[in-house]
């Protein structure tokens, strides 16, 4: 750009530059105000509230680390919720990433009507979770539900999914993976289409099989996309809420009580905002640590072209 032979961008006078900055600021303002009021300030307040005994209607008094002491020593529901959330994430993220990648490769073919398939796979993602949860509740019904009816035809006596201590969480995971993989598919699809064809051609010339081409060309070049998908999936999995609220209300017992559901119960159903903020802070710390670790390890496996 610095070359004198080429016509560079016209020099902008300082005065106008200032205007440009002002204009940029004004354009950003609506978003910024929204972010400050609805995200930054509440998040900041939550950090403070976690150290208070704050009954929403009675007011607050300083509690120091009392909320955290209770959380980590006596609160068995919190422990269960933490376990459940990690369980949910550990199973649902790999499944939805692999499924997202597999479907992305499928719908990346130049087939007739492929756009229709792409839309179908994305449909669950763009549908409201509450509505899907209600439908899946029906699918999971023990006697007349579709899933157990189908299992029955092959001689399997299906469990009472949503009221079973063992099966309630897998049921939520299955539904969530089904709902969420479409998003991963779209991101992977974008990544796949960014891989230049000539690399595949070169690999073919070298006699690489389809599987080899996938391992040595697709996967490495897709790794930045995979990294993004994993990070986003982990964060959103840790925040799972709607499904648990509507399909099982956290039950049976604490089998599907997730951290966010517990935050909701503490804050809004028990008026105990300070305690809820403390749980939220722990959730934040967990997500933060996971994300930092992922960023640290990305160098080992993410290749940037």
């Amino acid at each position, binding site marked *: 750009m610095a070359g004198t032979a080429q016509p560079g961008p016209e020099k902008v006078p300082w005065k106008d530059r200032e205007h440009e900055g002002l204009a940029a600021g004004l354009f950003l303002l609506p978003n910024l105000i929204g972010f400050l009021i609805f995200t930054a300030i509440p998040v*900041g307040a939550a950090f403070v509230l976690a150290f208070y005994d704050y009954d*929403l209607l*009675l007011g607050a008094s300083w509690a120091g680390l009392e909320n955290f002491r209770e959380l980590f020593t006596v609160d068995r529901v919190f422990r269960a919720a933490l376990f459940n959330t990690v369980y949910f994430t550990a199973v649902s993220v790999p499944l939805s990433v692999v499924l997202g990648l597999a479907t992305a490769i499928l719908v990346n073919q130049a087939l007739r009507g492929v756009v229709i398939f792409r839309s179908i796979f994305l449909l669950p993602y763009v549908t409201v979770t509450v509505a899907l949860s209600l439908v899946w509740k029906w699918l999971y019904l023990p006697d007349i539900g579709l899933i157990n009816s189908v299992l029955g035809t092959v001689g399997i006596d299906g469990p009472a999914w949503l009221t079973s201590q063992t099966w309630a969480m897998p049921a939520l995971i299955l539904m969530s993976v089904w709902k969420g993989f479409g998003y991963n598919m779209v991101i992977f699809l974008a990544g796949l289409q960014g891989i230049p064809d000539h690399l595949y051609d070169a690999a073919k010339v070298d006699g690489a099989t389809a599987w080899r081409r996938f391992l040595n060309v697709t996967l490495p070049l897709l790794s930045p996309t995979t990294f993004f998908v994993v990070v986003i999936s982990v964060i959103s999995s840790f925040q799972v809420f709607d499904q648990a609220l509507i399909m099982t209300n956290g039950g049976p017992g604490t089998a599907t009580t997730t951290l966010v559901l517990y935050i909701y119960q503490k804050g809004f159903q028990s008026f105990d905002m300070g305690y809820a903020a403390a749980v939220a802070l722990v959730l934040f710390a967990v997500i933060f640590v996971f994300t930092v670790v992922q960023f640290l390890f990305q160098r080992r496996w993410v290749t940037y072209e």
Partner: protein
Amino acid sequence: MNRRDFLRMSGAGLAGVGLLGVSACGGGGTSGALRWSMWSDTPEETRVWKSLAEDVHEKYPDITVKLETVTFADYWDKLTTQIASENEADIVAMQSLRMPGYAARGALQPLMPFIEDDSEFDVDDFFGPIRQGLSVNDELYALGYDIGPIILYYNKDLFGKAGVEPPPAETPMSWEEFREKAEQLTNPGAKEYGFVEQPVFDFMVPWLWSGGGDYMNAAQTECTLDSPESIGAMEFVIGMITDKIAAPVTDLANPSFAVEEFFGGKIGMHVDGPWQFINIRENSDFEWDVAPMPAGPAGSVTWAAGSGFGISNTTENADAAWTALKTITSTGSLKKLVKAGRGYPARESAVSTFEKPPPQNVDVVQKILVSDIGETRPFVTTTTWQETTVMLTRDFSPVFLGKQSVDAVVSKVKPQFDELLKEHQEILEQQS
């Protein structure tokens, strides 16, 4: 530090106040613009409440009432945050079971001063259980619009088909008779069951009382679910589920699970309040009726709960709010509500308009309400009741599923319940 100081301090509070603006200001006296918050789940309901708001303006042209509705499920979250940011409506809808939680936290004004100043107002026309239900420490905080005792619904067609004698209307049947009928009605092949229990602790309470047990002592200091009477009563109900003469619980997250099962026509008996009349009429295609709760060792004892409206503690127009409040809960207004199918009226003078049939035995409801049949008590709750219910619902769910014994769960629940009662006592002390 009180709530106001705290809010002023925290950025969230400042932003909240700045955002939400100031509430309506009237000039005092009996004029002004009022806000009225209420739950509503259907356009039909909203229409009825709106017409009551318009009635106020018609009768008192200087007063306007603006109705603000959200769904029942969202109402409580919204109300709590509104109160915390001192932006609640002047007239606030309140349910008796949740009253202590809000009243003890200073959300509503005591109504007795208004009633004493108002010679034409007769508070005794409201049924006893709703007055008690909307009072905390003998202080009345709201005027009721509906009230209902928990009663037994039964599917007449199913009784006829199975050749079982239906429950008598005026004399409660014994637990043994109840169980026997349920057994006779059950037909596993056709997936027909004699009974369905709503897997929520509230619906366990009439059984507890009828069995001579209770969930806490009168001083509200100790959980009494571990008494032999309480355990026996709970085992009686759960025994019907494990013996498969009551429908299996398949949905823990649906507050209408049991009544929806009943709609299906394959359930013989169901326990619920008279607020379900309208829903059962609309959703069932079989003949049905109502009867008192079955009588256990301590008789047929049930609870009554209802809802009403109170005056916010931060209103700047309390006199106008009182005028509007007594119009909204007048006999004429309650009759309007009853005609719209919006529950059983809280005033005795509004009962005569109650539509019939079904149920044929509608008169039984009032007899139960005034304890002419069996005994009706208010469902006494605590200032920490919300948290208590969340805990009970969570820990009792394996019991309703028949996967854990009553004994085992009670030993888990009792220490938590006791702890919440301790907190409850602390909140009461703090407030007085």
